[in-house]
């Protein structure tokens, strides 16, 4: 049964392996480069009191590549689910070959178990390798940015992506078993997996442990790193030193805790400062924001909980496939 599964999966597996080797080679070269540059930067500013400027420049240099590779790893499980998981069983029904293979001396349960294990296992291993290599290669950049807990980075590092891949592959196979046609199964896999991947970070992940409420002083460097400052003092893209996951932020508040968005001095700062001067103008008034956050030291706990959650989803999906096989086979 393993031979047959491998034989049917061979073409996809070899293409995937080739792509993985190219990616791994690139990550290896990039990683050596990043680690060298990181060491050089640290050596360069060893004698100076403040290394933050040099490190920020180092992170900036590799940020684009690190981000793009992160997105690649974000979509990798979906691609595997759509192209390896969904056709796995649907193609058997399309060709009618389920009637051939189910009448060999192998039970349908075993047939399904081997197929899920071989294909799901391969997808998981490939993604794990890619995620670990990426984590090593861009690790120093992420450490400087302090952003590894943010949703995209979280989903492309550590063990989580591998478990996503397992879920995507089993989901695709199960939908293929229910829909019995490859293209609809591929579309449904993409739709369901996308919804899960959007819903989990937005609705579920913030609650793995009770979030903490705290306030963050808006210093000059923090304001300079914001991606958005709204006309009435709402902000976006807050990154706090130490790298906690900022889930929610209030608008900018003054020392007394009142919103500053409609005060004259704030409007004056917004209207009459150049982008370079704005951080100093705002920070000079001693403003802060209240945030809801998950502290940085919970990162590995969250990786573990997320992995366990998706492992559970994978098991439930696989159980649905086995149930379908028992209740309505042909």
């Amino acid at each position, binding site marked *: 049964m393993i031979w*047959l599964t491998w034989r049917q999966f061979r073409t996809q597996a070899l293409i995937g392996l080739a792509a993985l080797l190219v990616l791994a080679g690139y990550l290896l070269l990039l990683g050596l480069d990043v680690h060298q540059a990181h060491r050089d930067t640290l050596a360069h500013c060893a004698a100076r009191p403040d290394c933050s400027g040099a490190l920020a420049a180092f992170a900036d240099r590799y940020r684009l590549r690190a981000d793009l590779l992160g997105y690649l790893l974000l979509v990798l499980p979906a691609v595997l689910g759509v192209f390896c998981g969904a056709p796995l069983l649907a193609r058997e029904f399309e*060709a*009618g070959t*389920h009637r051939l293979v*189910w009448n060999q001396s192998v039970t349908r349960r075993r047939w399904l178990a081997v197929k899920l294990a071989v294909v799901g296992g391969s997808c998981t291993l490939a993604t794990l390798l890619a995620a670990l290599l990426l984590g090593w290669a861009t690790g120093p950049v992420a450490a400087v940015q302090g952003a590894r807990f943010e949703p995209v980075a979280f989903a492309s590092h550590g063990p989580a992506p591998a478990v996503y891949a397992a879920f995507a592959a089993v989901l695709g196979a199960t939908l293929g078993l229910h829909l019995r046609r490859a293209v609809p199964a591929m579309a449904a896999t993409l739709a369901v997996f996308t919804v899960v991947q959007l819903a989990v970070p937005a609705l579920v992940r913030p609650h793995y442990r009770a979030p903490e409420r705290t306030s963050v002083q808006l210093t000059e460097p923090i304001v300079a790193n914001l991606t958005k400052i709204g006309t009435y003092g709402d902000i976006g893209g807050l990154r706090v030193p130490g790298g906690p996951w900022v889930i929610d932020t209030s608008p900018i508040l003054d020392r007394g805790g009142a919103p500053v968005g409609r005060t004259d001095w704030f409007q004056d700062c917004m209207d009459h400062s150049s982008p370079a001067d704005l951080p100093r103008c705002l920070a000079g008034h001693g403003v802060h924001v209240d945030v809801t956050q998950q502290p940085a030291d919970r990162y590995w706990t969250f990786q573990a909980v997320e992995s366990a959650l998706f492992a559970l989803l994978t098991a439930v999906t696989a159980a649905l496939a086995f149930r379908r096989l028992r209740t309505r086979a042909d």
Partner: protein
Amino acid sequence: MTPVLEAVGLGKRFGRRWALSGVELSVPAGRVVGLVGPNGAGKSTLMQLACGLVAPTEGRIRVHGSEPGTRPEQLARVGYVAQDTPVYPDLTVAEHLRLGARLNPRWDAALADRRLERAELDPRQKAGRLSGGQRAQLALTVAAAKRPDLLILDEPAAALDPLARHAFLDHLMESVTELGATAVLSSHALPDVARVCDHLVVLARGRVQLCGDVEPLIAQHVRVTGRPADFDALPSEAVVLARTEQGDGRATALVRTVRPLPADGPWSVAAPDLEELVLAHLACAERPGGKGRSSARPEARR
């Protein structure tokens, strides 16, 4: 001795339509069973029930005394070729044999090779490029080489031209004899069935209309020719299944009777052939008030 295949009150419903209902069947070992009936009579459904591809809605079916398709030992004893003779298009002929060898404990490689050679199949060819007849040969080879005790073939010769059909059925019979197996094959082609089968099951409207060994069945039927009025004189236990008027004021009827008709009746009698007998039973099932019942059954029965 337990029958190879036994069905008790067997019924299968797809949605609201009953494909089969109230099927009682007992097939003894060593027979070549012909399963005949019109399209939609439930032949394929019965075969899929027998190899465990579908589960019955009611009643039960036993193959070699146990539920079909559940355990590897059970699967090893039944060979099945579906109507569309499915094969893996991307695998070569040789890889199909390898598949069979890996998935079946009783695989007979020598038999498989012999059959391939006889069917003139190139082992290196991709199965997706085979003709319909070659595919049927390959599918049958895989099913036969697992050395089943029961071989179930759904319209095995459907994809073949008349000449190939003849040769295919001969091969098939050789395989069955060589295996010492029981075979069940469904067919539209009554001459094929008459040529190779020694046990008959007639299905119509989801029910078994007639079943039994061919020779006793033929012995229980006679073709009677006489004037229409003469038929009133038939013994009461004789059932007229089908009757055709002839141009000369005489009529021919196929009659089922347990005892031979009186030789001194005002009619002439002859033994019917298998084809005639099957057609008479099918026509009888189609008639209103005949043995066939509507496939939509009252709610109360569920």
